[in-house]
């Protein structure tokens, strides 16, 4: 029998479906709780997969991974706390939607887009894995540096109110990410002499602090009449209408899916960057970019499509080259090795049945997510909207504490989370975009590593610095960064030229 068909047949057993369902539900919960990550969930499950046949084990792990990335959207939409770094951008429009009582709409949109994004990533994995992997290794340190610079330039579109302050926030984020051990040189720096700070700032703690705590404080001071906004409006047939609304945005879905897949392929980047780039591109391409950030469904669609597409994308370098693109992929890698499956072309030839079975199981898990996600999401939305604020507030704080502790089992992280909360509140008063700070926090380490490694690489060149500007891929990335940086200016010029609009007051 054709190994692909036999692999697919092997997946179709009741036990495998049961495992995958459990994985989906578990992944969803873990993803929705900030601080519990897909990486931890999969690492916990790995020992149980030893006794399973390899395919069942992989299917379970894959289901957890897919569902956890999607589950992050719940907490992002409902309490403004991205459950995973992959859902940062979902906060921007998802939470305003929930505040307007459109939480259910946001959750449905997130679900449908996650499924579409997941499917796009899987299709790329099944059909294009080897050629795409060849592209992935073309990215060396200089390219990673320019990729992160490109990521930083998003700020000029993201913080459209004041790009200058956005970039200031970005610099602040980068500086904070430098605390701890330096990636090249291995020195301890900026720890104020506290040895517990050697661990640096865990991204999740920063996220919870920056996004979640200021919202809690806002809830505490808000007046009773404002609370009414949280009450959801019941709309009949909302699943159908929202689904149609989402599927109408074909370009947005496709673009975000491709962004997610490509960013997922690059080792080290992953969903946390993909969702922000997709958000940025959706905003740039939109006819009404000013509505982004106010609770527009397009934003949720872009981020959630992109982050689930990174799942398939991230598995491409893993399965073809044995290079895990994301931390969760690293755990799946460990599981593969333990089962005696060596990543590489062998997986697509000798073990083709297992590989294609695994890919097919991801497909099924994605569809399971649709059903489970809609049910759980609707329930959670109902529950949270009924919870009185006096219980909601301490509950969010409680979960923030558990989450920031659980991520590394470190009490110092909880204090750091709270410190970030205070910083988040202050910069909100100063009108600095906390999204920009987070972007700096994510991209800082990537940028530094690429930058210093490139410097080392070019030590023996006649003119060391030229390495940043001479490689073809780097030049392409520089052009993209320049375009992204000056986009607000370009779009202004474009708007003025036809003379239809009155022009902006500068």
């Amino acid at each position, binding site marked *: 029998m054709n190994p692909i068909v036999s692999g697919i047949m092997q997946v179709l057993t009741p036990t495998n479906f049961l495992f995958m369902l459990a994985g989906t539900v578990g992944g969803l919960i873990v993803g929705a709780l900030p601080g519990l990550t897909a990486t931890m969930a999969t690492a916990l499950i790995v020992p149980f997969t030893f006794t399973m046949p390899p395919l069942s084990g992989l299917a379970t792990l894959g289901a957890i991974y897919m569902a956890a990335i999607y589950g992050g959207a719940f907490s992002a939409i409902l309490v403004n706390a991205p459950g995973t770094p992959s859902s940062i951008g979902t906060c921007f429009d998802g939470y305003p939607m929930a505040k307007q009582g459109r939480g259910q709409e946001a959750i449905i949109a997130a679900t449908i887009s996650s499924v579409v994004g997941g499917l796009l990533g899987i299709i790329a994995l099944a059909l294009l894995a080897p050629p795409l992997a060849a592209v992935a290794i073309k990215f060396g340190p200089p390219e990673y540096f320019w990729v992160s610079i490109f990521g930083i330039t998003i700020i000029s579109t993201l913080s459209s109110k004041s790009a200058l302050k956005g970039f200031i926030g970005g610099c602040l984020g980068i500086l904070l990410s430098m605390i701890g051990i330096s990636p090249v040189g291995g020195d301890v720096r900026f720890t104020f002499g506290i*040895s517990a700070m*050697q661990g640096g700032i865990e991204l999740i703690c920063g996220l919870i602090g920056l996004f979640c705590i200021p919202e809690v404080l806002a809830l505490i001071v808000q007046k009773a009449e404002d609370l009414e906004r949280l009450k959801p409006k019941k709309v009949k047939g909302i699943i159908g209408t929202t689904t149609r609304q989402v599927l109408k945005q074909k370009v947005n879905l496709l673009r975000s899916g491709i962004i997610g897949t490509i960013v997922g392929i690059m080792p080290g980047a992953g969903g946390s960057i993909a969702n922000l780039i997709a958000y940025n591109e959706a905003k740039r391409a939109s006819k009404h970019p000013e509505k982004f950030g106010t609770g527009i469904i397009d934003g949720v669609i872009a981020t959630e499509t992109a982050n689930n597409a990174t799942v398939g994308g991230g598995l491409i370098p893993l399965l073809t080259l044995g*290079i895990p693109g994301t*931390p969760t992929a*690293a755990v799946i890698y460990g599981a593969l090795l333990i089962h005696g499956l060596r990543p590489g072309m062998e997986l697509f030839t000798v073990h083709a049945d297992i590989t294609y079975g695994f890919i097919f199981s991801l497909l099924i898990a994605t569809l399971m997510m649709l059903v489970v996600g809609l049910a759980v999401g609707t329930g959670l939305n109902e529950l949270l909207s009924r919870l009185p604020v006096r219980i909601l507030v301490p509950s969010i704080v409680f979960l923030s504490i558990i989450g920031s502790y659980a991520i*590394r*089992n*470190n009490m110092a992280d909880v204090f750091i989370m709270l410190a970030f909360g205070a910083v988040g509140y202050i910069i909100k008063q100063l009108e600095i975009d906390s999204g920009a700070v987070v972007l700096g926090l994510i991209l800082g380490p990537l940028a530094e590593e690429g930058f210093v490694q490139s410097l080392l690489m070019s030590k023996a060149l006649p003119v060391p610095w030229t390495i940043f500007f001479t490689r073809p891929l780097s030049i392409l990335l520089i052009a993209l960064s320049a375009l992204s940086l000056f986009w607000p200016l370009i779009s202004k010029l474009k708007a003025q030229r036809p003379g239809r609009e009155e022009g902006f007051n500068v």
Partner: protein
Amino acid sequence: MRKISKVAILCLVIIMVTGTGVSTLASNKFPEKSVNYIICFNPGGESDITARLQHKYLEEALGQKVVIVYKIGGGGAIGWSELVRSKPDGYTISGDNLPHTIVQPLQRKDAGYTTEQLKRTYCFELTPNVLAVRQDSPFKTLEEFVEYAKKYPEAVTVGGSASWSAGHLATIELEHLADIKLTYIPFTGSGAAVPALLGGHVSALMTYTSMIGQHPEMRVLAVASDQRSPVCPDAPTFQECGYDLVEGCYRGVSVPPGTPDEIVNILAEAFDKVNRNPEFQSKMEELGYQMVYLGPEEYEKLVREKTVYYTELLRELDALAK
């Protein structure tokens, strides 16, 4: 009033039910409860894979549950400084990597722990360093590699995992022994360095035997061990090529300072039993790990010897913390 007291009683009951796990102090038979096994590195890495493979056998050997706890950060320092502050009762143990736990306290002003604080219990594996290049690399032998590096100082880039790791130290030692100048480029992990080699961004990798089994695209020029490795039997050792270079990453377990010797011995016996399990051994060797069987004293001795050696090496490089 009555209502309130009812509620209060309920509260108490809940507190009592949920707050189980009150510790029993006297321990005449260790272990009486589950043992926490701290892993200081990311899931999916070598330390994690080893612990996951040990897990089942270790639970059998100890007769208790073993819970794997991740304390990641600072290149392992966060986990180790947590360990030395834990109760010395044997219920908290931690993976211990050499040279990390020797070099970090030497090189950092305050690593949060000292090398002597970790009470060595058992050392179970070694992954020797290997110098590897891409299959299509012009360097066919170590000799060619060294010759080229002599002609073009600093032009040969060697990737590896992190600064002051075994790979970094091995690169420095090779520079000394062969009198060449290389450029060492650290990556965030041994896995993260592989794409840089495959993409041609670095000329070679100073990696570990455990990576070779996974990546057939690499060709090993030499192994930094006193014996050839079963994962690359055709590759000579550095010693065979005339360079006395033996370097690698040892992994074992340690307990907090002040843990009673009886408990240390019980733990060491359990790990020894796991290590001698043929099923476990074959899995480990398949993945490129070299088994070692060092009990508490031998392990401690190894650490003392290595400490002297690394202190000297770091002093020469002017890298000791001031």
